[in-house]
């Protein structure tokens, strides 16, 4: 696969990237190194995995990380209830103890969670570890083992080696800083808020029915909002939601009332809402200035 092909393929699937993103993706595939994507919320980190699964024609296996995520939820778990029932059933059978044990601890009773599924998948897959900063350090170190050796040891069964090494995308919102060991194991990619030109392109691409003038106004306005001191800055995803809503409602220009009515789509936090409302006239003014440039 060549760089131009990656760029083209991403574009065809509606993901407007830049050269750095494409380079990181390609190198990650070539080196079989996981891709760690960091950046503010809503800039398209998770989308990389989704788009690549389409491009590479591979199954997408997703592990949504959360606080308290551990091996039993991410790797595997024994189906204890069924094992107990089976044990009861086989109480009077003629099988030897070894045979019973072997049956109980066979794949039939093994619940495969995303990490194990990705490794033992018959076809190569794309593994998405979303928002890993929400899991804790313990999980990170355990994940590192899996990502380094591409094998998992299940005491009762043995060591399971990967049939195919998946293309791994790890995303993080930087709520917490990730361990150095994990960062070094991966190729790092930082995706920031897009430039005005890029965001305009994305909006036009994803919301084709939108009036061109309005698209530009939305883009410039979002750019101004992001400069403010807010608790949670809106990302590209929010801009797109807003654009789609305005497009469905067939509006053509931004004005104060329209923004007041619809901005709840973009800002989900009441303190930030208040901050935006109070500065609305200034923001609109700056938007107009910005558009003339």
């Amino acid at each position, binding site marked *: 696969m060549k760089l131009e092909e990656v760029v083209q393929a991403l574009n065809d699937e509606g993901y407007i990237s830049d050269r750095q993103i494409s380079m990181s993706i390609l190198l990650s595939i070539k080196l079989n190194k996981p891709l760690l994507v960091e950046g503010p919320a809503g800039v398209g980190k998770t989308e990389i995995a989704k788009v690549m699964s389409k491009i590479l024609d591979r199954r997408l296996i997703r592990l949504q990380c959360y606080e308290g995520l*551990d091996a*039993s*939820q991410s790797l595997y778990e024994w189906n204890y209830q069924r094992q107990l029932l089976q044990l009861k059933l086989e109480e009077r059978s003629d099988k030897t103890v070894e045979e019973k044990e072997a049956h109980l601890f066979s794949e039939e009773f093994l619940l495969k969670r995303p990490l194990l599924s990705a490794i033992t998948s018959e076809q190569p897959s794309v593994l998405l570890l979303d928002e890993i900063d929400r899991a804790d350090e313990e999980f990170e170190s355990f994940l590192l083992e899996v990502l380094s050796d591409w094998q998992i040891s299940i005491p009762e069964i043995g060591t399971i080696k990967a049939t195919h090494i998946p293309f791994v995308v790890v995303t993080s919102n930087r709520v917490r800083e990730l361990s150095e060991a994990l960062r070094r194991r991966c190729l790092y990619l930082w995706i920031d808020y897009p430039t005005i030109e890029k965001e305009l392109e994305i909006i036009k691409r994803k919301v084709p029915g939108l009036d061109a003038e309005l698209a530009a106004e939305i883009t410039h306005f979002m750019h101004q909002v992001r400069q403010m001191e807010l608790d949670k800055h809106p990302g590209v995803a929010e801009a797109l939601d807003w654009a789609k809503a305005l497009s469905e409602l067939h509006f053509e220009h931004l004005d104060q009332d329209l923004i007041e009515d619809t901005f709840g789509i973009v800002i989900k936090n009441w303190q930030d809402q208040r901050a935006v409302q109070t500065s609305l006239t200034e923001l609109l003014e700056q938007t107009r200035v910005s558009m003339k440039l």
Partner: protein
Amino acid sequence: MADERQAEFFEWSQRSTSISHFLVELIRHLRTKEFKIGPNELSDAVASIQVFNGLGSYAGLRAACRTALVKGRRQYLLFDNLFDTFWKEKQRSKDAKIEDRSSPSRSLRKTEPRFDSIKEWLYAGKHHDTVEIAVYSPGKSLSQTPFIELSDEEIQAVIQLIQKYAQTLARQINRRRIKANRGQIDLRKLIRKNLKYGGEMINLIYKRPDQNRTQFVVLCDVSRSMELYTRFFIHFMIGLHRAYRDVETFVFSTQLHHITSKLNLSDPDHVLESLLSDAESWGSGTRISESLKHFVDSHLHARVNSNTIVMILSDGWDTADASMLSQYFRRIRQRAKHVYWLNPLMGHADFRPETAALKAAVPYLHGMYPVHHLDGLRRFFNAII
């Protein structure tokens, strides 16, 4: 400038036989700027240049190296400049060699700046000018030295100790397990609970990581008198936040600022500096009352619940009217699990909580602790966890 570099690039790509050699030097240069890069990264970089072979430009070469060598946001932001500097120095040293060959009479002349850059290049940044001497001073260890008495080198050492301690603490809390309905089997409890069934495991008992766990909220006073202590405490919060998610950091002097997200994205010292140099807080004292009001109005409900430990780090000197303070403290106390006041002035033997702010707070606190040195910090956290 760009064209000049492009021309240099073409010359280099014609001339160069060893990519690894170039990369080794680049990596050495990056290491002096605190990039932690090893042999794995070197081989990644070699592969990267081969994969992106067709890029054929200076910018392309730089991007290929960046893709393989950068491991974090800070490095991401610094990389291009560092690469440019490295390239310039390489060109200069290359020119120096050519100059020497073409005009032997000039070879004796060495100009100062060039010498320095070559020296750095040759000795891989190890500066032989300064020599470290280990000093032994019996008596107080670093943990027991008050922060105000630390020298500059010691400050760095203490900050590292603080962060290490924070992470150990976070891990301790992370490892707590409580009863659950699914997840990992808790074998001990399982056997115990099933004894009455005589060996049949009828009831399955699970354990999982404690999710209703302690949250920390700290309000740090950043007025001039508290600057030093806040700085250390914020390093602690950062260390804690690295391993433990439920940490919220606020700072206040005349206004309250919520800085948790800022701390993640920037260097903490920069964040503090930018806050301290704010025009409104310069010279004027603390306004605990207003800041607490802001906290209670805007953040109390969202961030404080019955699992939250609220800490106020301040010396208690307040310039404004303290009449409403009791109310705010009462509301915080009602909502939070525990409220503590951390006061660096308590290090003095004859300390009494006599300022209006402290007097208003005392009835509603679960404790007031001294934190003028690292040991104080440790003792406080060991007491409350």
